[in-house]
């Protein structure tokens, strides 16, 4: 009989039922779910991290790969020494994660569009969220791969996904991203009841970022100012506390990847899974010792006695910016609230990668939100944009537009918070753990070049180990100078960098993944130069 051959899948929702409003909401949740880079059952979320620890920090002057020698996740070592190839797993999986987000977003957009039963007001808000998400995913693609195919909700059939990356110019692709954030900012409300959903101002902030990356300074300034003047955001009182799971949706956070642990996923794949190699080691953190701060990064936190950064990298000083010991684990300095001194031997393979460990985005094992078993991750959100980041864009825009004093004021907001934050104390809790000194810039800024250098340094210090550094170097068009200078010096300390070399005009972008080229045909793909 025909019934006998009828297939009824168990536990699956048919496409026709997806148009129910509650299922549309679930399709939208799935579009968010891609934000943390976990898109399949594999345990290799670290290849496509939301935090860009590998794509933004390891390939910059801020961090080393770490782990058990150059041979541990050797492909990331190859990224670190700029021996990058289009077949490197991470290059491929990051792409897959971002396009997964795009596909889910587009699908949900179509569901929304076609739905007649979805609440009308909510519909436009959700549409705004989806446009925001799509903007984010493309922004990530753009900054990593430069030339990428643009796929929107009009692409539905599988065969239409065989598209090359040649059709859009650089400018046109930026235009698409701007359009999504513009649409999002016009559709989104000022407030959302769910902390994980973007607001109008989050979209505006991302739009500012989009302008910053194109050096559209006036637009960037205007957008930043609009966010600032909305009054929705402010710097959290304490620099260290910004990075506690309890504060991961505080008013400093403009948009974040929401992480969750102990939520029924036995492997905690909804947590900071992309960072699962970053646990520093030592008695409280088993494994894996990746994402290790560079000597150069440590040095950049030096200040003079009066708390001003040493812009000259050759200078010498006993004083450091207090943010240093919130950002990295240094021997002899207490580690978080563990009431224990960080020791060099926590660090894995210190013969190769030195004695420092990450700290800023590491959650204390005393917290319920740090998973004590594999994969040793936490529920701390990853901050895609936090207010300090936005302030520093504004400062940059001010410098580039000639408002040096304005820039100084803006930078000082960030420094003032750092200054007024608690410093790391010794184990007795009665004295600072090191010679900390930080002060706001009190003297007027008159030289644009000096001001530019100050703003850029401030970005580095404030946002260190947050996955931004490399992309900043690239957009400032100084990646080759900075990286090659860094290699020249750093490799005398760290032999794993012996063969590292940054090639201008090539290494600013990662290669288009070979998998994509193989599948859509080499003739349809513009590989980035040099690969």
């Amino acid at each position: 009989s025909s019934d006998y051959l009828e297939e009824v899948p168990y536990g699956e929702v048919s496409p026709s039922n997806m148009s129910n409003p509650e299922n549309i909401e679930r399709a939208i949740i799935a579009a968010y779910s891609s934000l943390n880079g976990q898109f399949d059952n594999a345990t290799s979320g670290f290849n496509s991290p939301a935090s860009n620890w590998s794509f933004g920090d390891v390939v910059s002057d801020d961090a080393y790969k770490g782990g058990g020698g150059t041979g541990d996740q050797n492909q990331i070592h190859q990224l670190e020494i700029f021996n990058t190839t289009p077949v490197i797993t991470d290059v491929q999986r990051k792409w897959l994660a971002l396009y997964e987000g795009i596909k889910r977003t587009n699908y949900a957009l179509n569901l929304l569009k076609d739905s007649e039963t979805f609440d009308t007001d909510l519909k436009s808000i959700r549409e705004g969220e989806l446009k925001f998400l799509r903007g984010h995913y493309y922004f990530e693609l753009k900054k990593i791969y430069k030339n990428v195919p643009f796929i929107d909700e009009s692409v539905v059939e599988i065969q239409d996904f065989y598209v090359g990356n040649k059709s859009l110019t650089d400018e046109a692709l930026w235009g698409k991203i701007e359009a999504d954030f513009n649409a999002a900012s016009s559709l989104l409300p000022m407030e959302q009841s769910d902390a994980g959903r973007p607001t109008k101002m989050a979209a505006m902030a991302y739009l500012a970022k989009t302008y910053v990356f194109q050096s559209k300074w006036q637009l960037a300034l205007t957008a930043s100012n609009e966010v600032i003047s909305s009054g929705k955001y402010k710097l959290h009182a304490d620099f260290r506390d910004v990075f506690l799971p309890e504060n991961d949706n505080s008013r400093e956070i403009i948009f974040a990847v929401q992480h969750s642990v102990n939520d029924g996923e036995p492997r905690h794949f909804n947590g900071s899974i992309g960072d699962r190699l970053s646990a520093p080691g030592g008695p409280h953190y088993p494994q894996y010792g990746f994402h290790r701060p560079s000597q150069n990064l440590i040095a950049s936190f030096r200040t003079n006695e009066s708390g001003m950064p040493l812009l000259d990298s050759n200078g010498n000083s006993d004083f450091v910016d207090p943010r240093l010991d919130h950002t990295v684990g240094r021997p002899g300095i207490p580690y978080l609230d563990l009431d224990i001194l960080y020791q060099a031997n926590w660090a894995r393979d210190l013969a190769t990668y030195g004695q420092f460990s990450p700290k800023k985005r590491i959650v204390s094992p005393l917290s319920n939100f740090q998973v004590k078993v594999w994969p040793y991750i936490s529920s701390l959100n990853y901050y895609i944009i936090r207010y300090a980041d936005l302030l520093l864009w504004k400062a940059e825009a001010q410098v580039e537009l000639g408002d040096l004093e304005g820039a100084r004021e803006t930078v000082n907001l960030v420094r003032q918070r750092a200054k007024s934050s608690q410093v790391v104390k010794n184990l007795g809790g009665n004295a600072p753990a090191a010679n900390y000194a930080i002060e706001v810039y009190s003297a007027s800024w008159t030289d644009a070049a000096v001001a530019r250098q100050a703003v850029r340094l401030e970005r580095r210090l404030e946002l260190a180990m947050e996955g931004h550094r490399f992309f900043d170097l690239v957009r400032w068009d100084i990646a080759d100078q900075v990286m090659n200078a860094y290699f020249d010096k750093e490799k005398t300390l760290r032999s794993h960098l012996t063969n590292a070399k940054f090639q201008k005009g090539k290494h600013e972008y990662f290669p288009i993944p070979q998998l994509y080229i193989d599948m859509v045909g080499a003739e349809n793909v513009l590989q980035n130069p040099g690969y």
Partner: protein
Amino acid sequence: QWVFANQSSEQDSNQDKTRFEETEKRGGNILNPREIQAEAKESANVQILNKTSLVQQEIKGKVIDLKRNEPIVGATVIVKGTNIGSVTDFDGNFTLLVPEGSREIVVSYLGYTAQTLQIGNQTFFTVNLEDEGALLDEFVILGYDVQRKKDLTGAVAIVNMDEIKSLPVASVESMLVGRAPGVQVLSDNGPGGNVSIRIRGFGTVNNNDPLYVIDGTPVSNGLNSINPQDIESLQVLKDAAASSIYGSRAANGVVIITTKKGKSVIPTITLDAYTGFQQAFNLPKMLSAQQYGDQLWKASINDGRTPASDVYGKDPLNPRIPQWLNANQTIPSADVDWVNEIFRTAPVQSYNLTVAKGGEDSNHVLSLGYFNQDGIIKHTGFDRYSLRYNSEYTLKKFLNIGQNFTASLTKTNDVATNSSLGSIVYDAFQFPSIVPVRDINGSFGGNPLNDISNPLGNLFRQKDNTKNRIKLMGNVYGDVKINDNLNFRSNFGLDFENFNQRSFAPIYNELLSQRVVNSLSDNSSFYYQLAWTNTLNYNKKFGNSTLDLLLGQESIENYAELKSASREGFLYEDPNFQYLSYGTQNQQNSGSASKWNLLSFFGKANYALKDKYLFSATLRYDGTSRLANNKWDVFPAFSAGWRLSEEDFLDLGPKVNELKIRGSWGRTGNQQVPTYSTLASFQNNINYSNYAIDGAQENVSIGLVETRVANSNLNWELTTQSGVGIDLEMFDNKLVITADYFNKTTDNLLIYAPIPPTYGGTNDGVWTNGGKMRNHGFELGSKYSGQAGNVFYNVGLNYSFYKNKLVELNPGVNYLGIPASSLHSVNFGQEVSRTLAGQPIGTFFGYDAIGIFQSEEEIASYGLQPNARPGDLKFKDINGDGLINAQDRTAIGSPHPKAIIGFNTNLYYRGFDMALFFNASLGHKIYNLTKYKTLFFNQSAYNKSSDIINAWSPQNTQTGIPRLSLDDPNENIRPSSYYLENASFLKLNNLQLGYSFPASAFQNMELRLYAQASNLFTITNYSGMTPEIGLQNYSSNSRNLDIGVDRGVYPPSRTFMVGFNVKF
């Protein structure tokens, strides 16, 4: 004193055989040659009446099996030209009163060549009967029907059970190794492990497994739960003519397995036992603790670095082995050969008891088996307890009912090998030699260099994680003889499996590898397949033609359900507490199910004219639940044969006994895509579809993602096969040759076409009908049986080859690769094989490595590899664009052998027997991916092969191993022909010596003792442990795209065994 009542046709020396043929032609209900035999014997018995007359002279004698030196029970002795006869008793003795003037007696026994003896004045006769050689060869079970071999028009490989019935094998599949031309057996070597059979190459890219039919019931999996001792016959239907009656699942051939039935009226008890031990051999040598340090230093210096290591110190000149490996000074340094350490000499044993009885109206077989094999890798092993009960009853003249039933319990302790997702063999290769087996506290030594946990610790910790499988398989049937020509049969088959594995992960701490919370996961599955088959058989002889008709209907339902649960935080790690209830935290569970159904109608007609012109036609109409919009398709097949040897006008001479040419054409189908491939749907997946939208730290909202990329138009894959064959028997049937040529084309290839990465990473492909594949090949089976004095011998040679080619792929699909998700980070996620149009399936893919640069000048003059240094690999610019980049990857070799050969010989001499079995594969390559781990220093924290001591250096240029480098700026490690090796081999697979005691030695008891050795030697140039590399994975859909890649296999073992067979 027995006398035949019916004198008419019984006196031919070949009476039994004639009778079978008669029976076979007459009876409609022929299902099994054994039944035919039984029926024949029963009818003989019935017709022997106890009469006395004309007594003149008493003669006595004994009938003995010549080869085995055993008495033959139940042999018939008759006086030629009369109806007077007798049968032999338990000891093979007979007594016969011979009328005066009788000149000859004829002694015959089923399956043996009858002998005619002069009576003369002799009163005691010792009659040696010679086994005709597998009588089974005469009949071929084709599933729904049985055919005389002589009438066969399709290609069928028949495993000579005689040669292997006493051969101790662990599984049914291993009976096929080298025994049937055109059949390849791929195995993972693990005890109770996975085996895949490939018939006539690779017909498709996805599911290439043949259909298994056991006692008329198709089954889907779990052949390792079948006790090989229960097998009566094993036949492989290779071409469409033979297999298309199975339509939808027959495209990859059909393996027909028939289990034993009670034969003898006299109850027999058989006991078979063997025991022995297995050893690993040909294990690779890794670097010692000091050698590793030396080579690490060398690699660092090659890179221009100053060597230093946390473990080996900071002396730039010499690596130093510290006294302790950890700060707490609990792990002393050592020097351990870890590869050797994970292996052991392991016992294997098997016991089997069979009780059988045949009879007029019923027959029964009861068999009990126990098989135990410890693995040569520590803490692995396999146990099988099996029970079989087969019976058959004639209730009425027109009604037979019967059943075959087997239950088995298997317990498997296995470990991942040859897998990109982790292999204990790789772990042993890579674990540092410097680490001791145990630290000073008696814990497994922890490793300060890399994150591999102690291989022995790993094996130890999972030793109780046994996979338990209970399998029930069987069928019941009823046969109704409607009239002399018409027979109806209804068969109901069940294949049921219950699986459970509790996996406990204890707490341990080995420096970089630890577990701080213990956990238990409990996985079970429940599976059944129901098959109901109804067939109508019609047989009729018209003049000199014979017609057999078969009509049938079959429905199959397959259901599988999975459940799993886990908890963490067990207070005690004692095995008594390794149950879910004792875990305190993180309770998880999940469950899912799937189902598919098949419905079929089929018919077959065989027509024989004058016993020499043979025709056969088959039609099957199949419906599947898996193809929503293309459920039904039709599968026809036609074949014809011509027995030239029966033609009067052709004089082939007296030496040719049989010559037949055959030809066939047919079509079979394949619908074995994963269930629901045609249905678009959405699902929740806790791993990647949820999100904490409200900002919660420990709670997520549910998301729905696309389950799969559906293809609602998915259609049947069609395999069209044509072939010609020849069967030749010569020299009194001593030489038997079967040769076949086939051409097999698969259209509408069901492929899992990769989706461009613009579609994201959750769904990486779609099932589609996307190409065409062709296999053609040749198979030759030959056997010669002879005698020299008292030595009887036979020699068999099988030879086959197939040529596989993916003829085309649909536009838009450039190649089929191994999904990235199954590559993990091995090889940087790069596939080492691809299936490309114009190339065979699973072709190795990569750069062409054409040597090692010897000097800077050579690099400069080559000009294409600026990052290279002397000692690096040179790669070929395939597309000639003056660059070495991804576009220069190409097909670099094939994993498919050009010839597969099996050679066996059996010798019998006065109770002694010897069997030798060789197998060989020639002309294929292996991608030795272990080199990726063991020859390159990119992943420097892991131990390497001692071969790298011979790596290139300015002082050592005559070597095939590139210079050592940690940074590898030339990317020597990339997939390339450097990894390829010729894998041709010849192996002495098996050697067996046996002795059968004369029956007189023990009362009424046959006893045979034997000793056997397997894997005695292998001749090959392949550098890895074994040139027989199976698939990476035996269950994934892409398993056939990944052939012959050596990722650290579970090596085969060398086995020595002794055993006995007793029958009384």
